[in-house]
């Protein structure tokens, strides 16, 4: 009876595991020649909510996103904001009314890297395995990527 109880509890624990079982590293990247060396997660949140528009050198931030349906975007949003991208839709409507646009959406990680390599102030995120010498890493996030 006791074993059955333990087995039942284990089953419950497995069932309660989040659907985001695969964890992976994601890197925050900017232009190779940027004077910035690191960006805290609080600062990153402000950049992606467009509350911070200039970096510490006074240059305009150009934050980049992947499409809202992209699993990396969903994982990034859940890890940084604890919310899915669609939960910010009303927020961005209000910002739009104030003349502030959401981050630019790029088609792919490679597009993010290409844009950042050529654009001062641009900042984005890609899988750690996708990063190369064209960009500089400012921080690393461990994200839970949805299945």
């Amino acid at each position: 009876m006791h074993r059955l109880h333990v087995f039942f509890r284990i089953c419950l624990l497995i069932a309660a595991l989040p659907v985001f079982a695969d964890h992976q590293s994601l890197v925050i990247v900017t232009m190779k020649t940027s004077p910035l060396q690191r960006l805290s997660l609080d600062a990153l949140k402000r950049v992606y909510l467009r509350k911070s528009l200039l970096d510490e050198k006074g240059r305009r931030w150009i934050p980049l996103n992947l499409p809202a349906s992209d699993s990396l975007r969903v994982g990034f949003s859940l890890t940084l904001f604890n919310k899915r991208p669609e939960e910010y839709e009303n927020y961005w409507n209000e910002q739009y009314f104030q003349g502030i646009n959401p981050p630019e959406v790029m088609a792919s990680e490679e597009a993010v890297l290409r844009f950042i390599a050529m654009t001062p102030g641009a900042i984005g995120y890609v899988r750690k395995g996708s990063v190369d010498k064209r960009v500089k890493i400012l921080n690393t996030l461990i994200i839970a990527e949805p299945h």
Partner: protein
Amino acid sequence: MRHALNVLVIALMSVVASPVALATEAKTAYQLGHGYRLGKTGIQLGGYVSSKLSGFSPRPWKFDVSDLSLFVSWSNGAKLNFFSELELEESISGGQEHGLSTRNAHVALERLYFDYLVNDLLAVRVGKFLTPVGQWNQIHADPLVWTTTRPVATENLFSKHATGIMLHGNIPFGEQSLDYTIYGDYSTVLDPLYETGRHENFDNALGVRLRYNVDEDLQIGLSYVDFNLLSIRGAPDIRHHLLGVDLAWTYQRLAVTSEIVYRNNNSAGNAANAWQGYIQGVGSLSKHFYAVGRYEFFEQTSNKLGQVGVLGMAYHPSPPLIWKLEYRYGVNNKDFAPDGLFASFSVLF
């Protein structure tokens, strides 16, 4: 030679066949509610349109395409931004007393300003902007609010616009932050379009607003403005003081907002002193349907304390679109918020 040709062909094939090379770098296609960018000029066009219907009221029933707003914004990609909102009001209207017509149509300049970002904590705005009192006035566009009718407290005791200079910014404290705004209004000098007949316009004003963002689900605001109203210009110098507090709280599928304002003046009598406020709750019934309830109170100079309740539904099938239906009922409310059934459809474009 042949080897070199093979390498070249393979290289070309890999570029041509690469899904990355085929993919669009940036997703620039027009999307409803996100505006339209004019290439790389830095100019963006957008806006919203709203149509309203009111009936079952002491007043005649009425239909109108009440707002057609056009936003034009521009950024130089560095520290300078421009934003303007031009509104065509009551472009088409009709009702119990007259047929469909455009005779009430008129154009209003809602906003026009330049923002200069001094640094990440301070921006300077010059031009015409929405008065930073409470929350509703600053996001009053129909697609962004949950009811067709507007709470009396968000427009009755102060001017909805100011023209002058504003210092504003956001100061972070770890995960929390403080939005601040300090502004001065000189409408009569700076706004060539100010209307002498509109009693709600500021003559001159000095105000401040603070909003403490406790977290993303809770914000508390405090507003103060000291002002003259255009309607009493030439009369003895009566300055009004308005103090407001507001709150926005979201918990799971429920959102609560509230604003309370108090206005007094420096004249001997206190007939113009007034308290007004509202509390509103919005609950999600399903993915796209929402129930809305609001209670309002408003002191008024020519009547007893007015009170109204609003009960309604909203259908929000996608972020830029919203349909609303509500019934408003109250006491001592015929001047500012009469009973009736109100419906509207709004879209951001």
